[in-house]
């Protein structure tokens, strides 16, 4: 489909199958416009949009469904709750007699119980986002359109919304299209990714491929404060301690959390600059997590700074180091490296 915009035309021709798709790109690359076209909020789009087999837009056949007929669950960046309605009335807004409603499920999933009778003006940024998510989810949408749901929040609040997004993805079973410019977020949330540059698709496909090293250049300075986000099931170790099982071949020591029962799904963030990269196997270091992997990309991210992307058991890790280290150690694609991660560098997102 295509849409003329002020600076360029948005041209997207892509077929996505994943249950969760990250849409990435710099500010002004057309991410939000793409969501608005899908939601039917932008007039003037041409082409064809099909979601789950339903034709929403087909300009050749003169089909252009109104927003209310599209069943898109739109969650804008700033939540945009109805200020004259309570949280509960907001969530129930789209529920109609004779249509399947998922109000109760959405309220439970996003843990809105204690705030149902409050007005949006009294809710925190993270709470507003949760209500907005529930409001979209309650209409039983064919697709959730999330426009940077975490961007307007500061880091601590972000940590409280991300797990809910993971629950929505895993438990509500509604496909989602997720706009973000944070690589870490995209890596943990998305199975597929779509990279936009000036309104055109630069890359699309499995998230692990698209969100590799090459993505960073297109996202510019957003790599500042980059984090590796890992999600998995917690395991108790009889001798003491807690491990996060990310994949078959990758488990991490994380700060002990005895209050969480084994099997709990949890997400952890590891800042890219808190990881030590070594060319040889490490022994006798205090860091309890030493992980072997292969470098898949190295690039400059600023004055004297570099970021290496390392594949460990199928997961992508980003490590920040100086350009001098890259030269001296000979860090290059294909090279085998070891990463040391202190347990305390793993911060649980909750």
């Amino acid at each position, binding site marked *: 489909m295509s849409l003329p915009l002020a600076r360029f035309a948005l041209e997207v021709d892509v077929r996505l199958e994943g249950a969760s798709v990250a849409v990435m790109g710099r500010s002004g690359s057309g991410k939000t416009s793409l969501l608005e076209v899908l*939601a*039917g*909020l932008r007039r003037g789009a041409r082409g064809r949009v099909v979601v789950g087999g339903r034709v929403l837009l087909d300009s050749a056949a003169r089909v252009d469904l*109104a*927003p*209310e007929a*599209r069943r*898109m*669950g*739109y969650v*804008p960046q700033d939540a*945009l709750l*109805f*200020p*004259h309605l309570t949280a509960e009335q907001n969530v129930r*807004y*789209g529920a*109609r007699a004779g*249509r399947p409603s998922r109000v109760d499920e959405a309220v439970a999933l996003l843990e809105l119980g204690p705030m149902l009778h409050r*007005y949006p*003006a*009294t809710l925190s940024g993270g709470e507003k986002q949760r209500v907005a998510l529930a*409001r*979209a989810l309650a*209409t039983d949408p064919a697709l959730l359109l999330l426009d940077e749901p975490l961007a307007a929040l500061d880091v601590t609040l972000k940590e409280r919304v991300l797990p809910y997004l993971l629950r929505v993805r895993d438990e509500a079973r509604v496909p989602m299209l997720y706009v973000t410019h944070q690589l870490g977020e995209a890596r943990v949330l998305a199975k597929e990714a779509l990279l936009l540059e000036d309104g055109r698709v630069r890359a699309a496909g499995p998230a692990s491929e698209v969100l590799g090293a090459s993505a960073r250049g297109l996202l510019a300075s957003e790599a500042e404060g980059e984090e590796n986000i890992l999600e998995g099931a917690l395991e108790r170790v009889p001798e003491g301690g807690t491990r996060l099982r990310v994949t078959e071949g990758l488990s991490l020591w994380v700060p002990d959390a005895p209050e969480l029962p084994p099997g709990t799904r949890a997400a952890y963030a590891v800042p890219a600059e808190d990881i030590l990269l070594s060319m040889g196997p490490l022994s006798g270091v205090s860091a309890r997590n030493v992980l072997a992997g292969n470098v898949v990309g190295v690039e400059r991210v600023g004055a004297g700074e570099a970021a290496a992307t390392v594949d460990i058991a199928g997961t992508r890790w980003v490590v920040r180091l100086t350009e001098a280290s890259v030269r001296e150690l000979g860090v290059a694609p294909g090279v085998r490296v070891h990463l040391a991660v202190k347990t305390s560098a793993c911060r649980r997102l909750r």
Partner: protein
Amino acid sequence: MTDDTTGLVLFTVKVAVVATLIILPPGVAAAYALARWRGPGRGFVDTVLALPLVLPPTAVGLVLLELLGRNGPLGRILDAVGVEVVFTPGAVVLASAVMAFPLLVRSARSGFEEVDPRLVAVARTLGDTPARAFFRVTLPLAWRGVAVGALLAFSRALGEFGATVLVAGNIPGRTQTLSLAIFQHTQLGQDARALQLAGIAALLAFVAVYATEGLTRWRGRRVRA
């Protein structure tokens, strides 16, 4: 109060209420259109709608008289179907309505302008048709502007004089309102009676303005609470 005075006050309030109710639907529609319309002609329509605010009321009354008089373009049509407007209570309502209309539109328009159009967009994605979204989101959020506008219009209609006297005359017991009666009694040198009526008019105006202020405060509190 004497029966005379009671009748006068009731007639005046009734005229103001009816005039306000009549202009409410077109006034809200015009306010909404002006708040959302971004195309050409906006400034022109805006100015025309503001004219009754700045023109001498007698000029507006004269225009109405020329239009609705028996030889006027509208008057002739009305005459043909047996409707007479000029110098009737209907003319009092009409003059008040025309003079009050811009006040309603201005206040309601600023109410609509404060409503984020993206809230309406969200309502659409949640299944609302444009009309449903208007009544569930836009109107409730612009409600204060509309209500304040209606009260201002009502207050304006209560005191209307210039346009009314031209198009409806000053006929005691038929088209005479409080402000017309004050004028008449002053002319006749019955200052005490005129002052008494002026006192009643002041009381009515006080209640209307106080209600407007109260409404503004109450509504503001609830949204912030």
